[in-house]
C-alpha cells in the first residue's frame, strides 16, 4: 500500500470511529418535553392557568425550568393569545386569563386551553391542551354544618352538578384540614354537599375566626375550583408576648437578674482586685520615695 493510501485509510478509519462516538451525536438528539395544563378558579374571581413542564432524565421525570410556553384560548391565533410564561426551576408557571380574551371567554360554556412550546436546543417542540366547562362553587353554613354548592353553565343557565367530589376543609398555615374524618363529600341532585364541622378546639385568630374552604381538585370537567368563608368557630387565640420578659435572648435591659448578679459580681470582684493592685504600685512608689 502506498503511503498516501495508508494516510487516507487512516483518516477514513478515524472519521468512522468519530462518527460512531456518542459524544458527537448528542447534539442531534433532543429530549421530549411533557407539558401539563391545569385550570384554577379561586373564590369565583379571575381564573388562571398553570403549566407544568417535565422531561424524562435517567429514567425519571424531572421538572424542566427556563422553558418558554405560549398559552392560547381555544385556538392558536393572535386574538386568543393568553400569554407567554417561563417555567421556574420546579418546572411550573402560571398566568391569569387576561381581559384581551374576555370576549372569546364569554362566547362558550366550555373552553380549551392550548399550550405550545416551539422547541429549543435541548427539547423538541411540544403541545398540550385542556378542556374545561364553566362552573361555580359556593359555600354556606347551616348551624355547625358546612354546605357547598356546585353549579355548571348549561346553555345560559347555571345547573346543579351531581356526583362531584368536594373537599370541605379549614384553611391552615401549612395546608387544608378536613372538617371531619370524611375526606370528600359527593354533591347530590341539587349540587349540594354538606358535612358537620367537628374541629371545635381549632385555634382561630384573636376573634376566633377560621377560614372554611370548599374545593374540587383536578376535576376532569371543571378543573380546580375553590371558595372560602370566614366563620367564628375557632378558639380565640390570645397571643402572650415573651418579648418583655427577662430572658437570655431579650434586649440588654431585659437580661435575667441572676445573670446580671453573677456577671457584675465577678467583674466587680476581679476589677476590684486589679484596682487594688494598681494602688499597691502607688504604695510601693511612696515607700520608695520615702526611703530617699
Amino acid at each position, binding site marked *: 500500500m502506498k503511503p498516501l493510501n495508508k494516510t487516507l485509510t487512516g483518516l477514513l478509519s478515524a472519521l468512522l470511529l468519530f462518527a460512531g462516538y456518542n459524544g458527537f451525536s448528542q447534539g442531534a438528539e433532543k429530549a421530549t418535553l411533557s407539558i401539563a395544563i391545569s385550570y384554577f378558579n379561586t373564590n369565583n374571581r379571575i381564573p388562571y392557568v398553570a403549566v407544568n413542564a417535565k422531561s424524562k432524565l435517567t429514567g425519571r421525570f424531572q421538572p424542566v425550568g427556563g422553558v418558554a410556553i405560549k398559552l392560547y384560548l381555544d385556538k392558536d391565533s393572535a386574538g386568543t393569545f393568553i400569554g407567554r410564561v417561563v417555567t421556574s426551576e420546579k418546572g411550573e408557571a402560571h398566568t391569569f386569563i387576561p381581559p384581551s380574551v374576555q370576549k372569546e371567554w364569554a362566547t362558550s360554556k366550555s373552553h380549551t386551553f392550548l399550550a405550545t412550546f416551539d422547541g429549543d436546543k435541548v427539547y423538541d417542540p411540544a403541545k398540550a391542551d385542556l378542556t374545561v366547562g364553566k362552573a361555580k362553587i359556593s359555600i354556606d353554613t347551616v348551624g355547625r354544618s358546612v354546605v357547598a354548592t356546585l353549579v355548571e353553565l348549561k346553555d345560559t343557565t347555571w345547573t346543579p352538578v351531581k356526583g362531584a367530589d368536594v373537599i370541605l376543609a379549614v384553611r391552615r398555615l401549612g395546608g387544608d384540614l378536613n372538617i371531619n374524618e370524611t375526606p370528600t363529600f359527593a354533591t347530590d341532585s341539587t349540587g349540594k354537599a354538606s358535612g358537620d364541622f367537628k374541629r371545635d378546639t381549632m385555634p382561630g385568630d384573636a376573634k376566633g375566626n377560621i377560614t372554611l374552604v370548599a374545593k374540587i381538585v383536578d376535576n376532569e370537567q371543571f378543573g380546580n375550583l375553590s371558595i372560602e368563608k370566614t366563620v367564628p368557630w375557632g378558639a380565640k387565640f390570645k397571643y402572650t408576648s415573651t418579648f418583655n420578659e427577662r*430572658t*437570655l*435572648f*431579650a*434586649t*440588654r435591659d431585659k*437580661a*435575667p437578674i441572676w*445573670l*446580671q448578679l453573677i*456577671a*457584675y459580681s465577678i*467583674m466587680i470582684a*476581679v*476589677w476590684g*482586685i*486589679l484596682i*487594688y*493592685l*494598681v494602688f*499597691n*504600685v502607688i*504604695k*510601693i*512608689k511612696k*515607700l*520608695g*520615695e520615702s*526611703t530617699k
Partner: protein
Amino acid sequence: MENLLVNEKIADQEATDAMAIADEQIIADLLPQKFGKWGKIWTGFLLAICLLGMYAYYRQLRYGLIVTNMKDYVSWGIYISNFVFFVAISLVGSLITAVFRLANVHWSTPLTRIAEMIAVAAIIFASLIIIVDMGSPERFYNLFTHGRIQSPIIWDVIVITTYFFISILLLFYPLLPDIKILLRFKERSGNALHKFYNYIGSFWKGTPEQFKLSDKAINILCITIIPVAFTIHTVTSWLFATTYRPGWDSTNFGAYFIAGAFLVGSGSVVVAMYVFRKAYHLEKYITENHFEKLGRIVVLLALLYLYFNVNEFLTPAFKMKESESAYLNGLFSGNFSPVFWFAIIIGMILPILILVFKKGRKPLPMFIVGIMVVVGAWFKRYLIVTPTLLHPFLPMHDVPASYRHYFPSWEEWAITCGSLAGALLIITILARIFPIIPIQETITEQHETVK
C-alpha cells in the same frame, strides 16, 4: 579558738565575695542585649510582614470586607481562627507563671518572663484581630453602647480586657527589682531606655517593705489569673458551643479548648526558650534540665489534648448523624482531611512519640516538637471554624457556588501573617528592653542554693 573564729570569718568573707562575683556574672549574662546582625534582620523581616499586613488592612478599610473571601456561609474565616489561636497561646502565662509559682515549682523561674511576654503579645493581637474581623473598627464602640450582658461575645470582650490587664501587671510586678538593676547600667542601655526604666521603676529601692508588698501582689495576681485564664478560653469556646452547628454543638468545648491552649502555649514557650537560649547564649540558665522537665509537661498536655480530640470526633463519628455526616466526612476523608490529619498527627501524635523518649526531650528535638505543636495548633483552630460554617444544619437555598467554598484572600493571609509577625515583634522588643530571665529572682535562688 581565736584562730578558728578568724578562719570562719575569712571563709564567710570569701563566700560573700564569691557570691558577689557570681551575682555580677549573672547580671552581666542576663542584661538585655542590643540586636546583633541576625537580630536586626529578624526585626526587619517582622516589620516588613507587619507593613504588608497593614497595607492589606488599609485595603480592607478602604473597600470593606469584600476584599476577604468570607461570604454568607463562612462569615468567620481565618481571622477568627487566628483569634482563637492567640487566645489559646496567651494562656501559657497563667500556666508557667501562676500555676507553677503556686505549686512551688522553682525550676520554671527562668521561663516565667518568656511566658508572660508571650501572653501579653498574644492577648494584644487577639484583641486587635477581633476589631479587624468586625470590618469597620468603629463598630467596636457599639459593643459598649449596645452590648448585651447575655451575649458570650460581650463576656469575651470583658474577659480579654481583664486578662490583658492581669498579664501586664504580672509582667510588671516581677520586673521591678530588675529595673533597679537595669538603672545601674545607663551606659549599656542608652539614654532613651534609661529614661524609660527610670519612668517605670525608679521608685523601687528593694526595701523589705517593698518586697513584702510586691510578693503579696504577685501572689494575688497568680491566684486571680488562673480562673480568669480558664474563663477567657472557656468563654471563647462558648462563642462556638452556644451556637447550634455541626462540630460546635458540644458540652465538652470548654475543657477541650483549655487543654489545647495549654499545649500550644507550652509549645510556644519551648520554641521561645530554645531561640533565646541560642541567640543570647543562656545555656547556663536555660539548661537541658529545663527542656527535660518542660518536655514531660508537653507530652502530658499533648496526651490530654489528644484524649479530648478522641472524645470530640470519635463519638459523633460513631453515630454519624445525617445532619453532621458531610461535616465529619469532610474532615476524615474529604476536602479538609489533609489539614485535619496534619493537625492531629503533627500537632499531637508525633510530639507524643518524640517526647516520651529521653532523647526527644533534648533542646533541638524539643524545639522541632515545639514548632510542630504550634503550627499544628494553628491549623487546628482553622478546622474548628471553617468546616463547621460550610456545613450548616439548614443550608441556604440557591446560594452561589462560591459560598460553599472558602479559601482566604491574599488580604486575609497578609493581615493574619502581619498579626503573627506583630506578636513576634512585641516579644522581640520586650526581650530587647527587659531581661528575658528574671535577674533578681535568679540571684535570690542562687543565694538560697549556696546556703
